[in-house]
């Protein structure tokens, strides 16, 4: 089993034929246990980079390998399956479906992945263990609808969903930018504490370099990609 989680070679991406924006990634890799922070100003394509890795958008030229599998030329549903099985994505905010309960939001992480479900014997127990780490009074929280939570609480639930089923690759798209400094610290501490160093890798993008503590690598988006007509 390879230690490389993500490997990109000679990738070229543009939104469509008319678009002048072009992103080129010559070489990029993420290994198990790595925690990479990608920073850079807004609008430089950080989110686009994450979308490419997760297979949500497609580049016409180049290769992306996820856990040794080339996903560049496979059908969309296969990419969705790989994303469901091996990835988790935490957004800046609005990570949760507001109309379902906290517990169901966490379960959502398992619903579209047989592999993740297979890793867990008792779903409810697993959720409880995860959430106990993240929030003291979980029992009081679990049946609440997500819109009843504060942004900070919502982000913690998002972390729990990220970790359930132990996906190998965690992508975080500005997960702290909606939080105040205290909550940023709590959120990142929780995230790092819950990561399995031997199996999981993390890529987080942020326009704010101040959160770089605890990351194993910190890179500017410009160091990873060549960008044209931004």
């Amino acid at each position, binding site marked *: 089993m390879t230690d490389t989680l993500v490997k990109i070679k000679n990738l070229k991406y543009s939104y469509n034929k008319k678009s002048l924006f072009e992103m080129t990634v010559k070489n990029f890799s993420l290994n198990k246990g790595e925690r990479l922070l990608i920073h850079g100003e807004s609008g430089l394509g950080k989110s686009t980079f994450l979308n490419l890795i997760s297979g949500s958008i497609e580049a016409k030229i180049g290769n992306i390998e996820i856990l040794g599998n080339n996903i560049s030329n496979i059908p969309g549903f296969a990419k*969705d399956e790989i994303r469901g099985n091996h990835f988790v994505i935490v957004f800046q905010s609005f990570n949760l479906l507001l109309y379902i309960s906290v517990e169901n939001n966490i*379960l959502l992480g398992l619903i*579209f992945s047989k592999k993740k479900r297979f890793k867990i014997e008792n779903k409810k127990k697993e959720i409880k263990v995860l959430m106990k780490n993240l929030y003291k009074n979980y029992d009081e929280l679990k049946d609440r609808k997500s819109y009843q939570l504060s942004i900070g609480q919502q982000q913690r639930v998002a972390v729990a969903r990220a970790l359930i089923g132990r996906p190998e690759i965690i992508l975080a*798209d500005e997960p702290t930018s909606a939080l105040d400094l205290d909550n940023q610290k709590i959120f990142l501490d929780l995230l790092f504490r819950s990561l399995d160093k031997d199996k999981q890798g993390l890529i987080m993008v942020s326009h704010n370099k101040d959160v770089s503590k605890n990351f194993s690598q910190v890179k500017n988006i410009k160091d990873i990609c060549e960008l044209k007509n931004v």
Partner: protein
Amino acid sequence: MFRITLAFQSILNRWLSCLLIILTLSASISLFFTVTRIQESVRVGFQNTVSGVDSIIAARGGNLQILLNSVFLIGEPPNKITWESYKDIDKMKGINFLVPISLGDSHKGYRVVGTTNSYFKNIKFGNKKNLTFSANINKGIGFSNVFDVVIGSSVAEKLNYSIGSEIEITHGLGKSGVVHSFNSSKEDDKEDHEDDVEHDDHDEHADHEDDAEHAHDMAGFKVSGILEPTGTPIDSAVYISVLGYEVIHKGWIANQKVMDISEEHLMDEDLEPTSISAIFVSLKNRTQIFQLQRDVLNYKKEALSAVLPGLTLSRLWALTSNIDKAFKIITAFIIFIALLGMTAMTIAGLNSRRREMAILRSVGASPRIIVSLLLIESVIISLISTIIGYLMMFFIFYFGQGILENHYGIYIEGYSIKYDDVKIILAIVFCSLLATIIPAFRVYRSTLRDGLSVKS
């Protein structure tokens, strides 16, 4: 299962717009079912009324007119035929039973039918059910006296009649007319006229203009039996014996009373009807029906027709089927418009749901799964709408049945769920899936385009 829960909770989250869709859809669906059921009921009602009668013989004329008048008590009565013809037909081969029918009089807007006890014994309604009495002083036989009257259940209920109630028969079918009497006209007549006019809600039973309607006061007619409800025009009829009918028409030529006859004088006479309006015929063997038709056509003494009720009815349906179709198409269009509304609302709501789609995509849901969620939502909405629409139809019939019965003579049968309705429900659900194709296609495209990065 989780997908269904998810779809359901998503609907609850957008409850107001979904409620509006459901209300529009269910209203149009209930309209469709109501119209369809009324159409069916009219047909079934007609079919049920002629159960067990193989042929109707009357003076030669339009088959439809004979059928409508003699069985359904609608329209102008046919010309009379002689009692002699009745006796001759009775002698024909293969006759099981005959029921004579005399028409042309009314009581407070309800049609009066002169007949014999054979009517109550032999005439069947619905699925070959016998007529039964809810009250009767003659032990179930109908008439034992010339002046006995049997009334249908609606007549008893609306006019508040019971056994022993005295009634008077009006000559002609109008709201006002001359009451049959044996003495010269009385002062009471005027009161009778006024009384009759009050009952104008029964004018469908008396759709004739009173060119020569006359009223006669018949002291002797008394209610001797009340029939159980049948859900057919029988409920709105007043039955007297053919002899009673004969008695009150003594001294009348056409619509004119030419002489007064005393009751005693009448009873002294050897009573036998002189003419009747129609004869219901039942054959021992239905295959002899064409033989009977031939015999009746070849009958020399007067010109007669033998009408086949089933055939005549199917001709009537052939005439009305285009109107039926037009109604159905209009109501189907209303459902179609409601479905268009659903499509419009779904599309309008999609933009605000892009974040929802992105979250689902981030946890591994493929665009196909997201499209399937949208389709499940539309199935849920259309199923709820059809169920509510169906219940609304029952609700409409529960409160409207009385009006339909009294004003239009339409009897809605039961509240059962019909197999055809299930097919229609499935068709509506299928159409709602079709209506979701455009929004689903847009979702498919936008989820592919947006990826995971919807910032809204």
